[in-house]
């Protein structure tokens, strides 16, 4: 991997407390190559979402990214971006799908407007062009463009998550972060969404940072996987190796907590 798209180096994040700090991410480093799907697995609270937030610089106090940390995207340190550069960077280079499909669209604004605001603030498109682009994106995820005037509550959970994915595609980003994108959905919808992401990835060539606690799901979807435990990255390897020859004790434990049928049947 000579030119990684994303290179996270020594990322250390604390939550500042009244008296003591809580180290949520402890000296984590990993790379993601262009077009690669990299998975971060671990139980809830192990710091994987904290990493996702840091890459788009979405954290607010009391979170604090320690100074030795570096997040390089195409060689540029995201942590050094000025506010204007950051605004331009977000979504254009890194887009994000959030955990709760039911809650990641603004409930009081139309789907079309939620495409428009992102298109209008990042491009010089006219209203008509933005509308055309939004329609095109919706078609990608098999939702009729007539529904741009509808509100989020008029869609099912799976459809809402597809709409979020469509919004992610709007600016043709280089990296898409998916923070447990299918946890809130049932298994059938889950599979359909992942399939869709995979197809889109082949078409557009973006990289994916995929975060979940479901190792089985991860192995079939990712190229490489990192296993996190209590803020540290304890193992990192190709997906197959993680499945067949897990190195760290914790990874083995994670596997043994799955019914064997589940893991085998998926591959």
């Amino acid at each position, binding site marked *: 991997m000579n030119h990684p798209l994303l290179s996270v180096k020594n990322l250390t994040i604390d939550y500042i407390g009244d008296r003591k700090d809580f180290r949520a991410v402890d000296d984590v480093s990993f790379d993601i190559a262009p077009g690669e799907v990299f998975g971060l697995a671990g139980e809830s609270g192990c710091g994987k979402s904290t990493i996702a937030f840091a890459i788009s610089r979405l954290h607010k106090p009391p979170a604090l990214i320690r100074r030795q940390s570096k997040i390089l995207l195409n060689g540029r340190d995201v942590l050094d971006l000025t506010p204007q550069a950051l605004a331009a960077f977000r979504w254009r280079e890194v887009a994000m799908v959030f955990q709760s499909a039911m809650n990641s669209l603004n*409930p*009081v604004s*139309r789907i079309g407007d939620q495409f428009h605001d992102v298109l209008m*603030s*990042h491009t010089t498109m006219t209203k008509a062009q933005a509308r055309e682009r939004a329609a095109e994106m919706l078609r990608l995820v098999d939702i009729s463009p007539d529904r741009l005037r509808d509100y989020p509550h008029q869609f099912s959970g799976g459809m809402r998550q597809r709409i979020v994915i469509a*919004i992610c595609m709007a600016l043709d980003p280089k990296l898409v972060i998916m923070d447990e994108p299918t946890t809130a959905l049932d298994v059938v919808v889950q599979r359909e969404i992942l399939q869709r992401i995979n197809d889109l990835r082949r078409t557009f060539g973006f990289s994916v940072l995929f975060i979940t606690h479901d190792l089985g799901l991860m192995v079939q979807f990712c190229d490489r996987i990192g296993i996190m435990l209590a803020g540290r990255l304890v193992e990192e390897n190709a997906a197959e190796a993680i499945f067949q020859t897990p190195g760290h004790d914790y990874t083995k434990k994670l596997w043994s907590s799955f019914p064997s049928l589940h893991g085998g049947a998926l591959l």
Partner: protein
Amino acid sequence: MAFLFRRLGFYLAAFVAAATINFFLPRLMPGDPVQIMFSSAGAELPPESLQSLKLTFGFVDGPLWQQYITYLGSIFTGDLGRSIKYFPAPVTAVLGQALVWTVGLMGIATVISFTIGSLLGVLAAWRRGSAFDVIVSVGAIFATSVPAVVTSLIVVFVFGFTLGWFPSGYAADPRLDPAFSLQYIGSVLYHGFLPMVTLCAVLTGGFAVTMRNNMINLLGEDYVVMGRAKGLSDHHVMIWYAARNALLPTVSSLAIAIGTILGGSLVTEVVFNYPGLGNILYQAILARDYPVIQGQLLIMTATMLIANFIVDVSYVLLDPRLKGAL
């Protein structure tokens, strides 16, 4: 539509409840209810006027339910009896004119303080922990903890009596005839300024706190974070993602606040000698003018119910999830 109809039905029931209180209260008091209600009128009124007044309040020969029906009948035909103090002026006329001033004062003060308060709350929540947030929060605690009567008295003392910048009485210069003239309107604004500012000072803090807390509770929502992740400007996320959603619970808490607003407005009017309902009521209490005191409960309840209905409608208009309800 069904939702709004249900609300209307409920409001009708609430209005009847208020009327029922009015009906039973004099009858629950020890002693002769007629004596209680019209004692101060007895000697001064001609017997036939007193008789018609009794009829209005349901004091007819017959069982209680018949009296009750008679009373409800007179209320729903718009007959609230006649004032004893201003006899023979009907209660509706005495209160109706005052109501215009009260609703004007209250309505404008509510709109102003809701707007300013909500804006302050939004900004304070967005800059959580900043000096601005501390000032707004502490200021709001002060404003909400001081009773309206105290605020009014202090304002009238400082600006009305000591500095003499503003008049401390009447809705307009009493030497002017009410007319649609620049001079008259100017006088109304001049006279209304202090009560208006006082009422705004009393109300703004409460709205700011409500909005701030509602904002803080939803700043962690995924859609707000996604708005930030989209690279939209700070202002855009603050207004269209956070504040626009925080407005919904704030508007519904407005419905509960209306009672407080009404109360504050009554008190302010008394202190500023402003000819609204509060002042009429104050005079009526001093004169024990029971028909007017009872009438104000019905008129205030009706005002409150209409205000509640306006809040209901605006809530439905603001929340697309309820679009079907209209």
